[in-house]
């Protein structure tokens, strides 16, 4: 039931968004229905609560976090929820008539309901984490409501400011409540409220308290966080009336009351809360006196009254809490009424500027009457509700000492009261009672009933409360006080006449002084203007802009998009962590004896180092670096041969040449000689980094090579290779069987690489790149001969030979060095030779298989081979082999691994061909001086002879 009540507004909002083609009345009806429905549910729960009990409801949500969907209705919650729903209903009606007739209000109302739901959640949630969720939701919805007039700059800024401040407070509150829950050992309000002593004793209490207060103060616009509230007035008036006077801004105060039994009662609490409250009350009241905008006046008055409430809860005595709760009720009633009133004036007279108003009493009597009474209540004039709570407030102030002194608290409270009377009177006189003007922005007249009725109801209420406080309020206020202050026995006896008390005297003096202040307002105003109090918005901006600029410069300096920086850091981190690990983990030299190096090995080593140096030094002649790098490739291949890795040697040799060809193809288009090289300091720095990295890697290699192997798993492979894998070349068996899955991934990579190269180069002939290609001019002078005869002839002879070799290498791969990958490369190289000799066009016409399909076929073959074993109930990639014998042919071996290797070979072949095809395709597009003819050789004496005949 409680949950349903909390959910109803959300449901209403959902309906409003969902409903299409419903007129304003219909939409209002929906909104009202959900609100009143919730109110009804509330009243159903009321009776037990009014007897001082609570009604609770809970379903688990995130048990591990202690976040439960648990609701709990006690006196305080009931009062607050009642305010939210009661005033909410009136506001909805008011909004229906206030909002311009031509614009749809569905979205607006749904936002209001969203907010209402969130507020209700705060009022009734009994899990502080749940409360947090609703808390943040109110910030969000108020952001959207303030920004509702999104085309107005002040609307957007007001909304952002409100969100920034209250959101910031909310963030602090998260921390505070988490700490609180951690101290109390539970996030359930019931548990927390009972563990006040533990909390106050905890060492984390101050932190938690400050964080929580930050949340409350920002929400309730306490100094110095008050300034967002006036800017929130950019919202439509119903919003101001609802959020920024009656309810949302009270959430902070409500939380103070809610946690009062746990947090209050310490010095820290008193000075922080009461002090802030006092200060805010005074400042708000003073500023309110000098504002011209009606809503601004009301906003600052709200700030001031919130200050008073905060102060009362800060006093830390149950009596003060009682007054606080009572004033919370009163203020909500008259302030909501006043905002609606100001809205009406704005709506009918066309302005909210007091300088353009005045003398409306005759023009719009009803409005004037309502406004006057409400303002009187705000000022605390008898016999109205505001008067009672103000009296009691002053009474409490009188009995409160500040650091041993008796006078500060009463004095400030008195000043605040004085100023609030002053601005209230100003509201009455400058708007309604002063002399009528001859022209107003619009022709003022009383609005339709629907617009003034809601405020009327509130005004009547405030009057009645003033006249018969006890019967009308104590039934609800007393339980609320009980819930807030924790002891039910608190006495609450609101009376109009207490006899002559200090408070009464202070009020009378305040009224007189306030009247004088109004009488001499012009002078005071001039003084105030000369004072030049800083504009809050500018302060805020001065706070925020540096933050943004700081972020910009920080991010700009660090994320400058430099690859070199990222690579440098990457190398640096790797090296540093490596050394760190050795430092921590310790190191001992290994005992494995080394192999003495023959002269030839040393020579090869010299070759390698020379090659490396040459490549690094020949930065300016890129073509030469390509020649030099072949030395390295050669030596590495020789090393593999010498160190008994024939498979590696074969692969290295064939990959080597492919890489060179690739680089040559690319270099043809790239600049051959860079104009400038890096600056010397940068080169030195990189050199040092390189030396560090090289040293570390080399040392690691040395360290491991010189220690005995640690029973490597490969011994298993060695033993099983023939018996289990059907091959004697353990490397190949590992590739296609033991670790065939790796190889599968590897050929996939190769295939993808080819696809990407294709995807990259295919569109290169269009756009700016195509432009560059067409305008491209060779850097070096070219010989006109495209296809030299002798090379062409030789290639024709070598092609079949190479293919033979390739197939041979493939077939023996399982038992001797070789295998699918190398075979695929050899065949590609052989074919490539053909392309080089006789031209791409000519050769390609003679090879009519689409490379994409080849690659796809290869990958699929490998995959299917892996999948095939499932058919036999064996796990994936399980290989099978057998020895068969046919008449004549004799005994031969068939292995599924070979099928897999076919997939490998095919993929490799397809990938190579695709990549090279695309690269030469680009070169074709490049600007050429002489036209392309498709002869396999440029000089063909035989052909020429026939041509002559």
């Amino acid at each position, binding site marked *: 039931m409680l949950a349903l009540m909390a959910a109803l507004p959300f449901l209403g909002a959902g309906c409003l968004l969902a409903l299409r083609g419903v007129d304003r009345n219909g939409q209002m009806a929906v909104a009202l229905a959900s609100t009143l429905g919730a109110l009804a549910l509330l009243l159903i729960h009321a009776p037990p609560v009014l007897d001082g009990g609570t009604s609770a409801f809970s379903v688990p949500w995130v048990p591990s976090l202690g976040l439960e969907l648990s609701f709990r209705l006690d006196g305080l919650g009931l009062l607050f929820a009642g305010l939210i729903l009661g005033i909410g209903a009136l506001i909805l009606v008011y909004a229906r008539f206030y909002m311009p007739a031509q614009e749809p209000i569905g979205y607006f109302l749904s936002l209001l309901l969203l907010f209402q739901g969130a507020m209700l959640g705060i009022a009734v949630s009994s899990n502080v984490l749940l409360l947090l969720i609703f808390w943040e939701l109110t910030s969000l919805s108020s952001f959207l409501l303030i920004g509702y007039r999104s085309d107005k700059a002040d609307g957007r800024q007001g909304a952002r400011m409100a969100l920034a401040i209250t959101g910031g407070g909310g963030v602090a509150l998260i921390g505070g409540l988490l700490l609180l829950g951690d101290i109390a050992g539970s996030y359930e309000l019931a548990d927390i409220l009972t563990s006040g002593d533990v909390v106050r004793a905890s060492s984390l209490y101050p932190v938690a308290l400050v964080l929580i207060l930050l949340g409350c103060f920002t929400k309730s616009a306490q100094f110095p966080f008050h300034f967002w509230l006036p800017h929130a007035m950019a919202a439509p008036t119903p919003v101001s009336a609802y959020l920024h006077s009656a309810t949302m801004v009270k959430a902070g105060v409500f939380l103070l009351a809610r946690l009062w039994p746990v947090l209050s009662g310490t010095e820290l609490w008193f000075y922080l809360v009461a002090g802030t409250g006092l200060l805010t009350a005074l400042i708000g009241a003073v500023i309110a006196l000098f504002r011209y905008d009606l809503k601004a006046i009301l906003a600052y008055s709200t700030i001031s009254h919130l200050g008073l409430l905060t102060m009362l809860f800060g006093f830390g005595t149950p009596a003060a809490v009682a007054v606080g709760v009572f004033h919370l009720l009163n203020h909500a009633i008259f302030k909501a009424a006043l905002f609606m009133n100001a809205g009406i004036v704005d709506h009918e007279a066309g302005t909210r500027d007091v300088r353009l108003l005045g003398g409306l009493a005759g023009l719009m009597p009803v409005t004037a009457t309502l406004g006057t009474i409400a303002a009187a209540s705000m000022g605390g004039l008898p016999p109205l509700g505001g008067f009672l709570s103000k009296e009691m407030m002053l009474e409490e102030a009188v009995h409160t000492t500040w650091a041993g002194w008796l006078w500060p608290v009463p004095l400030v409270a008195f000043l605040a009261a004085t100023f609030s009377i002053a601005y209230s009177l100003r509201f009455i006189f400058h708007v309604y009672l002063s002399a009528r003007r001859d022209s107003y922005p619009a022709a003022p007249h009383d609005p339709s009933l629907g617009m003034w009725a809601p405020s009327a109801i509130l005004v009547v209420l405030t009057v009645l409360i003033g006249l018969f406080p006890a019967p009308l309020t104590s039934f609800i206020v007393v339980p609320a006080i009980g819930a807030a202050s924790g002891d039910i026995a608190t006495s609450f006896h609101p009376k109009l006449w207490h006899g002559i008390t200090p408070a009464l005297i202070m009020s009378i003096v305040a009224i007189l002084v306030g009247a004088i202040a109004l009488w001499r307002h012009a002078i005071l105003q001039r003084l105030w203007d000369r004072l030049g109090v800083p504009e809050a918005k500018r302060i805020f901006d001065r706070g925020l802009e540096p933050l943004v600029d700081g972020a910009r410069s920080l991010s700009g300096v660090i994320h400058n998009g430099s690859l070199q920086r990222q690579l440098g850091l990457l190398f640096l981190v790797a090296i540093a962590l490596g050394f760190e690990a050795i430092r921590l983990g310790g190191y001992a030299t290994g005992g494995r004896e080394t192999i003495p190096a023959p002269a030839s090995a040393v020579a090869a080593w010299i070759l*390698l180092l020379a090659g490396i140096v040459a490549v690094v030094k020949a930065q300016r002649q890129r073509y030469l670096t390509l020649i030099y790098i072949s030395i390295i490739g050669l030596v590495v291949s020789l090393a593999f041969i010498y160190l008994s890795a024939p498979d590696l040697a074969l692969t290295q040799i064939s990959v080597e040449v492919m890489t060179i060809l690739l680089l040559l193809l690319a270099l043809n288009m790239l600049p051959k000689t860079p104009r400038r090289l890096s600056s010397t300091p940068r080169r030195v720095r990189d050199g040092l980094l390189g030396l560090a990295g090289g040293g570390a890697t080399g040392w690691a290699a040395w360290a491991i090579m010189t220690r005995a192997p640690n029973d490597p798993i490969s011994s298993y492979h060695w033993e099983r290779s023939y018996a289990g894998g059907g091959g004697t070349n353990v490397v190949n068996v590992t590739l296609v069987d033991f670790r065939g899955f790796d190889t599968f991934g590897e050929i996939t990579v190769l295939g993808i690489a080819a696809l990407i190269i294709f995807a990259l180069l295919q569109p290169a002939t269009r756009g700016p790149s195509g432009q560059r290609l067409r305008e491209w001019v060779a850097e070096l002078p070219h010989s006109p001969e495209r296809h030299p005869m002798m090379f062409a002839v030789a290639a024709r002879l070598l092609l079949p030979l190479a293919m033979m070799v390739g197939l041979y290498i493939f077939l023996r791969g399982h038992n001797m060095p070789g295998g699918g990958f190398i075979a695929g490369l050899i065949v590609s190289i052989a074919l490539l030779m053909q392309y080089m000799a006789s031209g791409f066009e000519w050769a390609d016409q003679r090879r009519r298989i689409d490379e994409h399909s080849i690659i796809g076929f290869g990958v699929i073959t490998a995959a299917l081979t892996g999948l095939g074993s499932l058919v036999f109930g064996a796990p994936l990639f399980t290989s099978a082999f057998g020895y068969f014998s046919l008449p004549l042919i004799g005994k031969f071996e068939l292995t599924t691994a070979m099928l897999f290797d076919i997939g490998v070979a095919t993929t490799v072949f397809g990938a190579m061909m695709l990549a090279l095809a695309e690269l030469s395709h680009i070169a074709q597009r490049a600007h050429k001086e002489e036209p392309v003819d498709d002869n396999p050789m440029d000089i063909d004496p035989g052909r020429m002879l026939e041509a002559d005949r």
Partner: protein
Amino acid sequence: MSIEFLVATAIGALTAAGIYLCLRARTFPVVLGLAMLSYAINLFLFAMGRLVVNRPPLYAKGVADYTDPLPQALVLTAIVISFGMTAIAVVLSLRTFLETGTDQVDGVPDQSEDRDPGDRT
């Protein structure tokens, strides 16, 4: 001088050169640097199986000492993969040069090739 020493120093030299070249400002030397690094890595991985002369991992009954075949298989995979990657790097740098007209790794115009583009004010 031992073979291990030669291999270790070779790995070190290749790595050093690779790192240095990778930190150049233009794509071509960077690609060379990557090639260098992959040489270094292939040798390194291979060396992790310890070095043995003339004991190719071809299974025969009763042969007790052999070169660890597993690192060789890993290196083969590594060679192939790094070849594919190098191919992409090469083609990509070519393509980027054609598109942007500069072979600067950060794609900034040629005037400031030896500077982090961020340093430009």
